[in-house]
């Protein structure tokens, strides 16, 4: 079974696996787009930070009420404390220090550690949920295009209904009802996010289906599954990759928005969770709301740049 699935995987990724020269060609085209390379660089950086970062940072969940709302080094914060004995306010200035290079939040948790933990969550959710969605989308799209007839009709009507469903509301509802765990968030986004991919892949596969090489393999006696897995899917794989890289930002934003409104996984610190806390301390500690947002923005930007570059690199008609 495993050897069979590996061989199927190999065939699907075939054009890249077998043909190193093709891969080199795409890489060369991609490199001409500097923004795209910068995006890729940032994504790799984020991945390394997400994987190895937690080994070096402090515990992101450890509250330290000695140093609440400590600003990053170089910034200061004024604080008035009511003194019950003298019945007046004493002002004191809190300065940032190197023990917390990005400051702390209202519970004294280290911002750097929380951001690193957030990078891990964002990438995990983004990649896994997109993986599920794109896998489903490709499968449904190819199946629909290749089989045609009532299968195509039924699948596409189902896709239409799924597309009309208010996605974010569904996400909020399901997470509220079945509990906020990362697994549920990933599953819900993955199982509802395939519609766009399915439509795009279907239209691509529809045009491929009428090509001569498909007719030729049919004439040679290839089975339906063989044509789908050996001929159709490998030919839409570049489209799938572009789709995936361009839909990751939406997934990351959805997870952040969900955590932001208080429905994130309570056992893990994600950027949205920090933003939720930062929203309430805008006046005292601006950095708590600013820092995770910048990370979120840069990550989404990086994926957008990278996806755009990939699309151009894979498109033979694009002049680079």
């Amino acid at each position: 079974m495993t050897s069979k699935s590996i061989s199927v995987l190999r065939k699907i990724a075939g054009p890249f696996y077998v043909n190193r020269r093709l891969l080199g060609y795409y890489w060369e085209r991609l490199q001409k787009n500097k923004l795209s390379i910068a995006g890729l660089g940032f994504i790799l950086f984020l991945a390394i930070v997400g994987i190895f970062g937690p080994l070096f940072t402090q515990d992101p969940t450890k509250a330290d009420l000695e140093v609440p709302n400590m600003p990053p080094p170089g910034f200061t914060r004024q604080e008035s404390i009511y003194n019950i004995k003298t019945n007046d306010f004493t002002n004191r200035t809190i300065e940032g220090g190197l023990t917390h290079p990005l400051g702390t939040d209202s519970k004294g948790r280290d911002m750097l550690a929380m951001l690193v933990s957030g990078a891990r969550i964002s990438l995990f959710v983004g990649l896994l949920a997109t993986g599920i969605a794109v896998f489903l989308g490709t499968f449904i799209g190819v199946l629909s295009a290749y089989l045609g007839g009532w299968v195509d009709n039924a699948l596409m009507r189902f896709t239409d209904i799924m597309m009309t469903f208010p996605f974010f509301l569904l996400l909020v509802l399901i997470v509220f009802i079945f509990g906020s765990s990362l697994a549920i968030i990933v599953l819900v986004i993955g199982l509802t996010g395939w519609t766009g991919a399915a439509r795009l892949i279907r239209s691509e596969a529809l045009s491929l289906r009428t090509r001569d090489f498909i007719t030729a393999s049919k004439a040679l006696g290839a089975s339906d599954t063989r044509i789908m897995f050996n001929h159709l899917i490998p030919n839409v794989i570049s489209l799938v990759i572009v789709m995936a890289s361009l839909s990751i930002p939406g997934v990351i934003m959805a997870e952040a928005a969900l955590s932001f409104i208080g429905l994130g996984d309570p056992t893990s610190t994600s950027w949205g969770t920090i933003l939720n806390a930062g929203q309430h301390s805008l006046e005292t500690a601006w950095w708590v709301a600013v820092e995770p947002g910048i990370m979120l923005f840069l990550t989404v930007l990086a994926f957008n740049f990278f996806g755009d570059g990939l699309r151009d690199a894979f498109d033979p008609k694009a002049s680079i």
Partner: protein
Amino acid sequence: MRNYIIKRLFYSVIIAWGILTVTFVLLRIGPTSPVDRYILNIAAKGQNVESVKQAIEARYGLDKPLIEQYFTYLGNLLQGNWGWSFSTSMPVLELIGSHWIYSFQLILLATIFAIVLGISIGMLSAVKQNTKFDYAASIFSFIGISIPGFWLGLMLILVFAVQLGIFKTYYDTNYPIWSLENLKQLILPVMALGIGELAGYVRYTRSAMLDNLRKEFVTTARAKGLSERTVIGKHVFRNAILPLVTIIMFDLGSIVFGGAYLTEIVFGIPGLGQVSFNAIFANDYAVVVAITLIGTFLVLLLNLGTDVVYTYLDPRIRYD
């Protein structure tokens, strides 16, 4: 054409009904009950919780099997009875009636803001291709697409309300809807909600204009001696802008169910997004189902409207 509209309306009703069913079932199988809110008060007074709970559930028919509740709800809905909101103690229709205007004004203004500015900047950008303005617009649109709307909202509050003190940090419902003060306090929410769409429209308009500028009818128009103003403003613009109608309609769906929802929460605007958000947490199922249903139906009708208007805008399109 008439048959087409009837068919689409029929589809819309089916889809809306499906969404109603899913939302209803999801909410009613949830772990919390709308009664919980009453129970809290009862328990605080030290009375017998179980008997009170049973009495309330019996009164509102919540103890009956799910399927019976569903058909009762559906029957009431068909008779124009939208149910009772447990968490706010008023009829659902009244609740929606007093809150819809806040969502409507926000969505309307944000859409106008995005369309007008987006198309203008996109057009200028295409006409002045490869100038500084064009580059600035490109960078701006990339940033606008990648920035999470709710974080942008937070940052706008931080800069313009907290630091500069130009705006209030919260939405004040004491101002009448038709007043300058109300318009002023909508500036930040409209920007937070609209900038993502705006950036998308800039990118779309620019590339569509550039595509059309290369077409032969433009050469013909210029050869006829038409002024550049007429060529760009009439021939190119009208052809480029047509597909934008679909994109705007598609965005409207995501604004209604995603962006506006979060923007209302960030700025504390008491619109339907905020109402349904609170209702989800209180398991006030009638409110959630009603708002979802209205939103979905509006989006579906708008989509149908677009498709119909399209046949007038573009005589090449015909539905049978």
